[in-house]
């Protein structure tokens, strides 16, 4: 009986890994497609990190804009990251998670600025925090906030 219970647990982990791998990959690919499409659409909105406006800008109206997103990593990627943490080194699986989150937050900020009729965003900042350092103390999901000052000519 005990043997069966153990076998069942192993099966469950394998099932979760397969589910995570399949759906996670699908979700990531779909997300990247949508990110690329929107990045093209927002191409004319200039986003910079510099603190001061150029002299030629005159005296435009400015507004604070922000965009944030919470993205969760899938079971498979978390498993791989756990393995990587035993040996150390680059954790590729989390890199794509953070890349997606940053770009999504930036896009949401741009969308807000665009709705205000802005031409540029100045002094853009990123802020990252991890949510749910849960039972196993692993990074489950991250929140990324992007904020800046929209310049409305």
């Amino acid at each position, binding site marked *: 009986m005990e043997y069966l219970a153990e076998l069942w647990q192993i099966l469950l982990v394998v099932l*979760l890994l397969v*589910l*995570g791998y399949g*759906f*996670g990959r699908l*979700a*990531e690919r779909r*997300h990247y497609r949508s990110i690329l499409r929107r990045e093209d659409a927002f191409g004319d909105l200039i986003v910079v990190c510099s*603190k*001061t*406006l150029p002299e030629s*800008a*005159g*005296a*435009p109206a*400015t*507004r*604070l804009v*922000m965009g*944030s*997103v*919470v*993205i*969760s*990593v*899938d*079971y498979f*990627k978390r498993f791989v990251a756990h393995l990587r943490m035993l040996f150390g080194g680059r954790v590729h699986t989390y890199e794509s998670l953070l890349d997606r989150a940053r770009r*999504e937050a930036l896009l949401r900020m741009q969308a807000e600025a665009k709705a205000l009729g802005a031409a540029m965003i*100045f*002094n*853009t*900042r990123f*802020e990252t*925090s991890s*949510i*749910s*350092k*849960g*039972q196993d103390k692993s990074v*489950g*999901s991250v*929140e990324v*906030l992007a*904020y*800046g*000052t929209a*310049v409305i000519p």
Partner: protein
Amino acid sequence: MITSTLENVPGRTITQHLGIVQGSTVRAKNIGRDIAASFKNIVGGELKGYSELLGESRKEAFERMIQQAEAKGANAVLNVRFTTSSVAQGASEILAYGSAVVVE
């Protein structure tokens, strides 16, 4: 009320500095309680509920900062920054701060 991440308001001069103003909220986040969120923890993807929750908390922190600035008699908050810090397991503080000024 003008809010900005810049150090000045373009085309206008700062006549008075009123010091730092801040607003914060502390939220508990427990992903295990939420069925949709724990499902998303397996397949990955955006946690919409949490995006909204954090967006609202940030708005609240921001509003508190604005209230403080208004109480000081400011008409602009410049150099606004946001930070998030975890104060305890599963709880995090969202802080918004900036310098309150009077501009022409």
